[in-house]
């Protein structure tokens, strides 16, 4: 049987009283710590390129991003990043390391279905929407800028 609206509403109330709440405070704190840690590491890498290797910010910036992407991919390959993600939540998902994880994890997962139908086809199943909407947003912002400020 499928519940009618009234039955569904009554049941929903029961479920709400019995569902353990997400530990929001703890999750937020952990996300702050993990996200902060990745940022700290990124800052350290940036300093390494600017201070030690004497690179300008134009070179050091992209190089730092690339290094962090490598770190995210590396931790995913070691099987550690999913555990960091479970503990750190959004703090692990939001930095660029999380983006790397979202591409490397399906690539690893679907290796067994082959290079074409597996790895390359599934690689962007999670990151794909991010890339699509980020690109669209960039276009929209550029159009607004063009209209307001002119070329």
């Amino acid at each position, binding site marked *: 049987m499928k519940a009618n609206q009234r039955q569904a509403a009554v*049941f929903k109330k029961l479920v709400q009283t019995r569902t353990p709440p997400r530990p929001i405070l703890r999750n937020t704190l952990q996300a702050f710590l993990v996200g902060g840690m990745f940022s700290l590491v990124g800052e350290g890498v940036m300093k390494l390129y600017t201070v030690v290797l004497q690179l300008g910010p134009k070179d050091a910036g992209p190089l730092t991003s690339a290094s962090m992407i490598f770190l995210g991919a590396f931790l995913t390959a070691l099987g550690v990043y999913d555990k960091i993600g*479970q503990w750190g939540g959004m703090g692990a998902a939001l930095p660029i390391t999380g983006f790397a994880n979202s591409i490397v*994890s399906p690539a690893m997962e679907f290796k067994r279905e082959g290079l074409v139908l597996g790895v390359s086809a599934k690689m962007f199943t999670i990151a794909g929407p991010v890339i699509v909407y980020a690109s669209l947003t960039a276009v929209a912002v550029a159009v607004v800028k063009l209209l307001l400020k002119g070329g």
Partner: protein
Amino acid sequence: MAQKRLGKETVFLANPPAIVATAAIVGPMEGKGPLAEYFDVVEEDTLLGEKTWEKAEIKMLQEATDLALKKAELKTGDIDFFLAGDLLNQIIAANFVARKISRPYLGLYGACSTMAEALGLGAMLIDGGFARQVLIGTSSHHDTAERQFRYPTEFGVQRPPTSTWTVTGAGAVVLAEGGHGPLVTHVTIGKVVDMDQKDPNDMGSAMAPAAAETIWQHLQDTGRRPSDYDLIVTGDLGRVGKPITDVLLKKAGYDLTPVYNDCGIMIYDTNQDAHSGGSGTACSAVVFGGYILRQILSGRYRRVLLVGTGALYSPTSAQQGESIPGIAHAVAVEAADVVD
């Protein structure tokens, strides 16, 4: 005709078949849980030396059926029907094991309720005189389920407290006419119940109404009270679904609390990070075949009601905004000397 029907939806088995052997094989995480000592085999890793998790699941199911047959001292040729199912698309674990067993095969899909569904069907086949021995097997695997239903296993996503952990394991049962062992005496086949729950991360709430409905129907049809059972055990409602079932049945006039437990809660310790508990086709299969059956054999339990619970959705139906239908099948298993 139809003299073996009891009430609206229950059948009673006039010549109850016996559970002559069971086998329970689990993965490493289940092997660290509180029921570890009751499983026949605890695998060291989740790949079992295979190249893919799917192959590993198939191997586990194969090993479980082999072991159950060996314990029952039967050969595959003695089996009249092989009933099996799992969670993979097109139930490939069951199909591929059936390919090797090469006996008349019925593939079943009841999601995580498949063990109870198969026990009920197998018992009816034997009681009806259509079979002498029936082999049953069900399996699930955490990693095959994750990649099919959710995300890649290495993806760093946070699981909510309502989510469950799919049990890696396989269970097998041999039912036989006139054999030695606990008897399957009553079967209540469940109806699909959908209370409009839509969160695939909370299957306990989606399945609880179906469990409550089937347990209520079973008690109504048989005229039994919850206290007539030493244990009423649901499949994989977890820490969220179990109390909801309890509340629903209290409202309907049955207090299950003293005898009620859930395989999903029993299989893992709270510190194993399984959140709401275990789930999957193997969950009730290994807890029943490994732990509960040994308790019946040792005399601790005389009469047990196994209520397999299943969430009958697919990732496609969930993505298209459909609610999650639930189902539950109840099978009464009793020590041989109770039934006279």
